[in-house]
């Protein structure tokens, strides 16, 4: 059909134009729906005299928050209250992620153990924890905590400086000392130095083929530098031991039952999933890889470091990140057991101000920020992993 020109094709038969038309249609529908909902909402808000806008953020919150990482009182603003909540979410998510990865790896390795008993128990743990809703687990651990532990005056005292009671766990901790700041600096410096040593050792090995004990050097640096600083300050060993003052323990560091129940539930639930991820990752590396590595004369540690882990991690990291994200999102269930995370504080804010739209929008925005930053990290990682591939 040589005489067919673009002008002669009716636009509804031209796939390109049709696609554009179709998309315009879809966009119109979405826009119409959005317009319908927004206009309804605006009329409703007006009719029911519900206040709108973000002005409430600067008003006095007038409510207290149980635990906070920054100074806060009921005389502060809603904005600060919400910040306290967001920090609490970050805190519980961060600790939860670290613990879940640790225990999950342990259980995943146990699942692959040649010890029948350990492997079976790990399997049972994984199956049971995965199959019970995390919310139910939170309720369960919270109930166990406050229904079975004694009151502060009869607190369990399993070892010096550690108290367990239905108000939580109080632990002795180093009293604040100026040395700590410098120790932290020394620790950071050691991390940077270790990285430099690693780069240098790699380059040297590439040039001259000489190996260098990077791991041991780094370990020595990371432990040694802060220790040296500590000794230089005269080894301050003053411990801040919790004491029962009035109603509660004071001093040391303490964790509330809500925090512990939340952490316990999240960590147990997530580590079961992490264990499966780790197991699958390790199993994904074929046996031939180990054998081949042995054949070219690598040592056990080198096999793990240079052959197994790089391949396993490529399989493990993406699902692991999504588990971390799940943990962060699940931490929103704190509202059910009264840990003041972001959702819980936002919930109270909605309740006191009546501004539900702003409140829920804030919740969504905060979690989206967490998720998007993780996605950005994931994309970066995937790019790196892809570069390694041949």
């Amino acid at each position, binding site marked *: 059909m040589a005489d067919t020109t673009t002008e002669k094709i009716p636009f509804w038969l031209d796939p390109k134009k049709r*696609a554009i038309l*179709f*998309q315009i249609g*879809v*966009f119109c529908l*979405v826009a119409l729906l959005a317009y319908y*909902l927004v206009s*309804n*909402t605006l*009329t*409703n*808000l007006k*009719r029911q005299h519900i206040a709108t806008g973000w002005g409430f953020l600067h008003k006095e919150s007038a409510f207290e928050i149980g635990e906070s990482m920054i100074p806060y009182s009921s005389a502060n603003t809603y904005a600060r209250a919400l910040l306290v909540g967001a920090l609490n979410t970050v805190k519980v998510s961060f600790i939860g992620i670290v613990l879940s990865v640790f225990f999950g790896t342990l259980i995943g390795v146990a699942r692959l*153990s*040649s*010890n*029948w*008993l*350990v492997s079976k*128990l790990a399997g049972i743990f994984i*199956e*049971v924890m*995965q*199959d*019970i*809703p*995390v*919310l*139910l687990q939170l*309720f*369960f651990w919270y*109930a*166990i905590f406050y*229904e079975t532990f004694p009151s502060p005056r009869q607190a369990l005292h399993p070892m010096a400086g550690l108290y367990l009671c239905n108000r939580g766990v109080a632990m002795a901790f180093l009293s604040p000392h100026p040395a700590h700041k410098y120790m932290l600096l020394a620790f950071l410096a050691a991390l940077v130095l270790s990285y430099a040593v690693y780069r240098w050792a790699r380059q040297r090995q590439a040039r001259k083929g000489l190996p260098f004990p990077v791991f041991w050097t780094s370990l020595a640096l990371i432990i040694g530098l802060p220790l040296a600083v500590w000794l230089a300050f005269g080894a301050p060993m003053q411990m801040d031991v919790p004491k029962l003052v009035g109603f509660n323990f004071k001093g040391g560091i303490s964790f509330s039952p809500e925090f512990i129940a939340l952490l316990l539930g999240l960590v147990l639930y997530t580590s079961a999933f992490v264990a499966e991820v780790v197991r699958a990752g390790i199993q994904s590396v074929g046996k031939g890889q180990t054998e081949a590595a042995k054949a070219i004369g690598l040592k056990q540690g080198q096999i793990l470091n240079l052959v197994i882990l790089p391949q396993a991690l490529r399989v493990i990291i993406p699902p692991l990140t999504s588990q971390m994200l799940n943990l962060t*999102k*699940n931490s*929103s*269930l704190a*509202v*059910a057991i009264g840990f003041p995370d972001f*959702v819980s504080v936002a*919930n109270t804010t*909605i309740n006191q101000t009546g501004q*539900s*739209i702003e409140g*829920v929008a804030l*919740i*969504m925005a905060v*979690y*989206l920020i*967490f*998720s*998007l930053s993780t*996605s950005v990290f994931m994309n970066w990682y995937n790019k790196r992993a892809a570069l390694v591939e041949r």
Partner: protein
Amino acid sequence: MAGDATSIAAADTLKPPSTRKGVVGWVRANLFNGVFNSILTLVTLWMLYKLVPPLVRWAFIDSAWHTGGAACHKVSGACWSVVTQNFRFIIFGFFPYDMQWRPLVAMLILFALLFFSQNRKYWNRFLLYAWIAGLFAMGLLMKGGLFGLAPVDSTQWGGLPLTLLLSVFGLTAAYPLGVILALGRQSQMSGLRTLCILYIELIRGVPLISLLFMASIIFPLFLPEGVTINKILRAQVAIILFTAAYIAEVVRGGLQGMARGQYEAAESLGLNYYLTMRLIILPQALKIVIPPTVSILISAFKDTSLVAIIALFDLLKTSQSVLSNPEWMGFSPEVYVFIAVIYFLGCFSMSNYSRKLERELSTEEY
């Protein structure tokens, strides 16, 4: 290998050493192979010894099964009476007491359908009709109003039927939506693709509880004056919208797993987009993603427990309601263990099935 023939012959004649077989052999090979494993076994056994007997004592020996609340407080073990005495409320919630056979029958129909659906021999047109008829029958039993069944308002639905309803209907309705979203995300039209990506990432980026909050407190504001939608339905819609985003990602995995040749073959046959998808791509892609879809069903089943936070009386909320009765205060572990067992049975059978299916499907490919 040269030694193969001889070693097989030797195996025929020589018996293995006694330490390699029987109970002793098994224990040696699986529990005490090496110093580290031996220590591990002993430590684990000691922990089990410390943990299991007191637990058994608590759960079975010292426990009370059919007493009142006051008598229960005197028992040192578990008080299972809190479950047995309130069993029907925990399971059926507010459903009128003398009509509770109806949700029971509805659940039995559901279990029967699920039972038949798990065998792939029965996957045919007839099963589809059976499902449609079954869903209709279940709806009728729950709602009433026809064939002489007294109508029961949906505000009175609760307990296990509500949990099942939210998860089964949630997945059924989310599935088509998820497939459409996945197709949109893979589409050539950039505008449409952006829209779908936006939706999927937005939903997957926020916790379900925020959507439930939205459904329970904001959604009424979206509707024109005077129009209201039932609370259960609103929560159901939130669950559907949430699940659809996850299904979309699973289906996308299936679509990406399709060989390029499949598309090209369909194109060369002159099939248009709709026919290509319907006849060639989707049947294969959806088959690949059955196992991950089952895991989404499992999470949907577990996630429905979140509706307890917005005061819908699902299984978790009915049990909490029992616990707030002064007579039964303080027996949370017992009730929660009971609920956990129900959830566990549901999820475990589904994940077992998913694994079985995965094996079947993977063997078929070769």
